[in-house]
């Protein structure tokens, strides 16, 4: 009795699934050839379709060189940097709901976030630690690429873009450093921007523009907040898009030594 009920149930479920997959709405979402349209059984053709008929095709070709999937070769450092960037975006959006970038409110907002917002402390911790980790992975990614000679033709320009991405990562981390508006943030940024002032000719002007005045205050906070949550992420995403595109156009990751 129970078994027939179960059979009936699964038959009904299969019917609904078939109906749903035949609907126009479903077919408008998934491309022809998508595994969500026609189901997946393991075959070379379907393995290709998984990439070819999904958004992943922006990032990956259908096939890569066998040595490119060796973890010992890349250590996943570039991919992890990108993943940390996504993680930072997600946790950063969460933090933005609870934060106002003024000298009067910033510190209190962070304090309230840590003490009275569910998961507030955890998410802030994750944001901070993944930011430090990202600086590290980007730097190590550069070292890996250098030791493999992967900056050599035809990948010269992608290396240059990579250096720009390293700089942008440092700037993102540095602008975020000020936002908690505690003693650590204020004085670390004071020391950092004083170094900037040593630049010849326009050093002081750059410092003035970045600080929104001759010393750090609530204007600085607003500027660095906008830089941190909007402008630098926008710029870095554009450079990342070019970086990933060039990786594929230049023939995938470099060959074995």
């Amino acid at each position, binding site marked *: 009795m129970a078994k027939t009920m179960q059979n009936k149930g699964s038959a009904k479920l299969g019917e609904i699934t078939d109906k749903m997959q035949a609907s126009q709405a479903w077919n408008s979402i998934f491309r022809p050839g998508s595994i969500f349209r026609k189901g997946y059984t393991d075959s070379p053709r379907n393995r290709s379709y998984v990439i070819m008929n999904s958004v992943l095709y922006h990032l990956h070709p259908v*096939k890569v060189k066998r040595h490119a999937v060796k973890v010992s070769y890349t250590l996943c450092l570039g991919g*992890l940097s990108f993943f940390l960037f996504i993680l930072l975006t997600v946790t950063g959006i969460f933090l933005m709901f609870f934060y106002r970038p003024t000298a009067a409110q910033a510190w209190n907002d962070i304090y309230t976030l840590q003490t009275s917002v569910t998961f507030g402390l955890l998410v802030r911790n994750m944001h901070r630690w993944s930011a430090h980790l990202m600086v590290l992975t980007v730097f190590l990614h550069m070292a890996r690429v250098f030791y493999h000679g992967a900056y050599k033709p035809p990948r010269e320009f992608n290396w240059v873009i990579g250096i720009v991405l390293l700089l942008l990562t440092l700037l993102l981390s540095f602008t975020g450093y000020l936002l908690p508006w*505690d003693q650590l943030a204020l004085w670390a940024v004071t*020391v950092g921007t004083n170094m900037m002032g040593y630049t010849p000719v326009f050093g002081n002007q750059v410092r003035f523009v970045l600080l929104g005045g001759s010393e750090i205050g609530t204007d600085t906070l607003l500027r660095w907040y906008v830089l941190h949550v909007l402008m630098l992420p926008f710029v870095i995403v554009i450079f990342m898009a070019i970086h990933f595109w060039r990786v594929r156009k230049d023939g995938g990751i470099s060959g074995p030594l």
Partner: protein
Amino acid sequence: MTEIPEHLRKRAEEARAKAAAAKAEPEAAAAAAPSEAESKIPAHLLERAKAARSKAAGTGDVGESVAAASGGGTALATAAPPVAAGPGGHTQRLLTVVKSGSIQDVKASPQDKVHVWPHLLSIEFVASLLCIGFVLIFSIFVNAPLLELADINKTPNPSKAPWYFLGLQEMLSMFHPMVAGVLLPGLGLGGLMLAPYVDRNPSIKPEDRKFAISLFTVFLMSSAVLTIIGSFFRGPGQLFVMPWVQGLFFEL
């Protein structure tokens, strides 16, 4: 009648004239009949073509113009355009044979490749899972620092930059600000950016690029050492301290 490009028509005429010249002049008329018999063009079409041609020429009888079309070369130049067929009635001919590899040189040799799904995607998935797991667990146990409210009138001792600038800060305590804050980082950054254009050595084998690798290792190691000294070995007044004696003066 089909339209034939001017240059092709001229070429066909020349070929026909040449073929006719090779044959003896008296045989020309006799040769006309067999070549027409060989023709693969249906008889009724040939008839129609003949009629059209004689009409266009406006002279003589049908038989004469047929003889001119199939055999005579010089007569045709003034007469109507020819049938859309070469000698023997073929509508196409072989121009040349291009051997593979004589024009296109295929350099790509088959490579050992694997499917991105599942081979690469599964690795990426596991790597991202491990990464988020590490960050999550680390964040549960270690809290991000939040010191007291910022106070511009209360300078902490020591004041340190974020850790990735501590190498720079360390250099500032050793050299003139112009050298440590501008010249050296500028050279480092410029050198990194220009590395692929300066390093013309095409080999990627470590044994062929000892100089490049040594230089880069010196760069990495010096920045690491400077950062570590700046982070852990500098205490109040930027004086040298032993972290296991005076304690840590370092916040992330």
